[in-house]
């Protein structure tokens, strides 16, 4: 099997820029855990694919060009791409282009060697053409890694879509989400609380973490340095001003805003509290249902509004799979331990 990686995931000796001029020419000094694991599993590395700058390019505008990773799979350059889908672009585009995007439970796949964007939500996922290929890659890259402090202790995972037990599915109240009931698939409408504030919570917490994570790009230790900078402050200011694209700059500035004295309590702290309420509510809902089904696309290019669809796995660390279904595509979301039930449901829908 051939795999590629977004160039926010490191392969020793390869240029790895996370799509940023700030990392132009940066040669990875070591390999990501997921790269090592794919190679150990006998998969063939077919190269890195340019990514959006820290996965956030176009976050604040209406553009939605097809991602290079999606194109690579569509053009048969590989069977799977390892990606970090931070704000949902790849889940949306996979589902609308006949592909599949699998986002694992947070902590099951090592982030060692992944250039960080939103550390509490970053997770290497698999973009693929077939569910079976995706599950083979996911099984290969999952498992404990002592080099990632958020890695769960389980040594290995085996994923498949062969579940035969009954699956209960909580459906979003949306015309695109239709799942046929069968002997072993039971559906009911699910009340999806807090959806109205998920974009706010996602953007506030996401920007704060991006802002923090991008402070390491200072023009000193590695990466881009502006020419003729005079003094240390000038090195910082000019290197970061010239090195970052507009969206990365804005994410940093939004992060500084929500972490500033005036906004910390009403925006940042409150978002963390709401994240707790969201997790408690959906942990409970996912006791009642094995899987929650949401559309993978709301239509239109308003990414801020769309982000409500993709926020739940990010904010709660759940697994999700996005796949083609009806016009908008569908996403399934589940808690740790229910992944194979979710994948079986995905197979059912795909066939």
């Amino acid at each position: 099997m051939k795999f590629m990686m977004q160039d926010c995931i490191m392969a020793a000796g390869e240029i790895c820029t996370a799509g940023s001029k700030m990392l132009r020419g940066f040669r990875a000094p070591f390999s990501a855990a997921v790269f090592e694991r794919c190679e150990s599993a006998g998969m063939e590395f077919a190269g890195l694919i340019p990514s959006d700058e820290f996965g956030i390019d176009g976050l604040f505008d209406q553009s939605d060009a097809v991602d290079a990773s999606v194109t690579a799979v569509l053009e048969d350059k590989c069977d799977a791409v390892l990606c970090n889908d931070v704000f949902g672009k790849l889940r949306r585009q996979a589902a609308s282009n006949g592909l599949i995007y699998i986002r694992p439970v947070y902590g099951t796949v090592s982030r060692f060697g992944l250039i960080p964007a939103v550390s509490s939500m970053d997770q290497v996922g698999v973009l693929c053409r077939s569910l079976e290929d995706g599950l083979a890659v996911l099984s290969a890259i999952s498992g404990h890694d002592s080099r990632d402090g958020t890695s769960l202790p389980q040594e290995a995972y085996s994923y498949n879509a062969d579940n035969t037990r009954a699956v209960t599915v909580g459906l979003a109240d949306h015309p695109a989400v239709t799942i046929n009931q069968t002997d072993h698939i039971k559906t009911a409408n699910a009340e999806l609380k807090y959806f109205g504030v998920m974009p706010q919570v996602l953007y506030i917490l996401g920007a704060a973490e991006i802002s923090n994570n991008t402070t390491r790009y200072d023009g000193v230790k590695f990466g881009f340095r502006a020419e003729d900078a005079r003094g240390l402050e000038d090195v910082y200011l000019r290197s970061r001003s010239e090195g970052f694209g507009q969206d990365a700059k804005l994410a940093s500035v939004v992060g500084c805003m929500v972490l500033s004295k005036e906004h910390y309590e009403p925006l940042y702290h409150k978002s963390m509290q709401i994240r707790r309420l969201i997790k408690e509510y959906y942990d409970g809902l996912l006791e009642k249902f094995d899987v929650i089904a949401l559309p993978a696309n709301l239509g239109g290019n308003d990414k801020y509004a769309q982000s409500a669809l993709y926020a739940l796995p990010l904010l709660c660390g759940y697994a999700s799979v996005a796949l083609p279904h009806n016009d908008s595509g569908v996403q399934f979301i589940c808690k740790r331990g229910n992944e194979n039930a979710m994948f079986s449901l995905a197979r059912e829908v795909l066939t």
Partner: protein
Amino acid sequence: MTDATLSAYEAMAKLRFDNDSRAWAMNTLSRLEENFQALSPVDTTGAEPLVSVLDTQNVFREDKAVKFIEREELLELAFEEYDGYFQVPKTID
């Protein structure tokens, strides 16, 4: 959102927007700031902030030195190095 407020945030972030993108940044920031007010009505009384989605607390390893990467390999990534250290332009005249 005023130009002065944006400048204050730029100073915190140690970066500047160029003149072409400044108006866009200000408008987007204003729009987000206004939209973020939707959080106000959410009752969060008694809710502890959620920092990590994992139940695990501190993760410790054995107190054993492990050589991960050579100093020289990291310094090769530096824009400028001198005698085993990162070098920056002169900071004090």
